[in-house]
């Protein structure tokens, strides 16, 4: 993983029901498989309603993480729902080196015009489409997890898939058929996320 700072911080934006919190938890579990990093994963809790904007967070560090306050200046921002680009929350606190990964059919260039952020640091993937084709419905958290793994870099895809598989088999023990779809979604987004 390319860790430029002492603690790498990630902010997830989604809408209630899209699984931003689950994705943050899954990401943390993937990272600990490396045996190299301390992690945190936590949601921002507000009134819980389907469709309301929600955030979740990760911290990753080679050193023990003791801080327990919110993330203000994230290194990575993951946006599960492109309608959230209309609000300024997505770009809040970004550093010029921060990278944004967005679930959209638009190009990085088109998004950069919208949010006024450097095109080179904007990555796009049509996670909703991938999710519909692999899982059968629009739950974009798994593909966005795949995209994040790719952009953060140096995280082994197969190790990630194994980690997620174990977790999902436990979580969906009554409907194991959703597991493979999610794993395919992660793999596809890992391949398809791009900067254009």
């Amino acid at each position, binding site marked *: 993983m390319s860790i430029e700072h002492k603690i790498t911080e990630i902010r997830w934006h989604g809408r209630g029901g899209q699984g931003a919190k689950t994705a943050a938890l899954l990401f943390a579990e993937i990272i600990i498989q490396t*045996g190299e990093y301390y992690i945190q994963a936590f*949601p921002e809790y507000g009134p819980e309603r389907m469709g309301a904007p929600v955030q979740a967070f990760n911290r990753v560090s080679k050193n023990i993480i*003791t*801080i*327990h306050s919110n993330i203000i200046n994230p290194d990575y921002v993951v946006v599960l729902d492109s309608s959230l680009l209309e609000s300024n929350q997505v770009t809040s606190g970004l550093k010029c080196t921060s990278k944004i990964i967005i679930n959209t059919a638009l190009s990085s260039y088109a998004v950069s015009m919208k949010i006024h952020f450097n095109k080179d640091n904007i990555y796009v993937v049509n996670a909703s489409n991938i999710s519909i084709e692999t899982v059968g419905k629009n739950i974009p958290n798994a593909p966005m997890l795949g995209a994040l793994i790719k952009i953060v870099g140096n995280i082994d895809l197969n190790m990630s898939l194994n980690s997620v598989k174990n977790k999902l088999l436990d979580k969906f023990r009554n409907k194991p058929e959703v597991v493979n779809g999610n794993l395919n979604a992660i793999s596809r987004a890992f391949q398809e996320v791009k900067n254009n």
Partner: protein
Amino acid sequence: MIRPLSSKGKLVAKTGNEIAAEAMRQIEPDVVAAYPITPATEIVQIFSQFVADGIVKSKYIAVESEHSAMSATIAASAAGVRAMTGTSSQGLCFMWEMLYIASGLRLPIVMVAVNRAISAPINIHCDHSDTMGARDSGWIQIYSESVQEVYDNIIQAVRIAEQTKLPVLVTMDGFIISHCMELVEVYNDDAVKSFIGEYTPERYLLDIKNPYTLGSLDLQNYYFEHKYQIAKAMIDAQTTIVNIANEFTKCFGRSYNLYEKYMMDDADMAIVIIGSAAGTVKMAINELRSQNIKIGLIKIRVYRPFPKDNIAIDLANIKSIAVLDRSDSCSGAFSPIYSDIVSSLYSEGITTPKIISYVYGLGGREITIEHIKNIYKTLNQIMLGKDQKDCSIVHYINLRK
């Protein structure tokens, strides 16, 4: 490579609630009676799944309220078995009268409390008003900074409760820890079971060969003596807690004490705090120390019994001290930790440190490294004797007035 401290340990990622349920699975109390409440719901949700799946042999009693949860836990403990529960905020408030019965009957109950603000106005986020309100109820109170500490504290709590015959409350900060996934070292089941041992109560109600009376009327003649015994047990508990912590360190590697000293050896200034914000303070102190600023932290782990003697000694030579409370007593005077710190020092004849009181984080209000750095600036001014901030009133962090 990050490695477990103990040969009996392995590293996993879990939230505070998940690790509390995991500790309870390993402890496998005979009875758990609980009623779910945000943000502690997952603890009983996960544990009741363990029961339903037959993973533990514990009896789970799904009660209709927290009052009944504590009542059933008390009854189970009095009957002679290990009993645990968990709650938060309004749930703890609803247990109120039963809390005193648990300690008054000297029952070794362990309860996990997830700290949350108290209504009204309604708020589900963290502050310490709930457990601070119970600070005089005769329960031992152990606060946790991180997910790891939640786990280690719950395991130790079982031994502490059974040895002191006092109920023990282990806390974690609502959402900040209860819903935060962190890297945590868990120990294997056998090691945990062997550490806590079998529970063999000295006396119990279902021991029909040795019947005894529990909870009888106790008027002017003896009530006072019985209450004194609780106060005495609380003082004696300090030694027990330290001994069990030392044994824990031998078994599993992690060190615990009544409170933790961080960068205190040569400190001129100190912050005293409790709970998860201690970790944020540590990070702020790391930054300040890199600028050769001599500031340290005292993180209180065991709040009841309050480690007054040792803390007074450790703070005696500090020039300026900020005590940060995550609850407001609304007393017209000061909040709980500040009052305990000041009386600890004064009773030892230590009156030189200047001590300033802060209240922060009510209802989940954010506290950041920047806030801590501002406190340092104030401490420095106070230490230098210029631009004194009024130490005779409570100051509020990150509050709109």
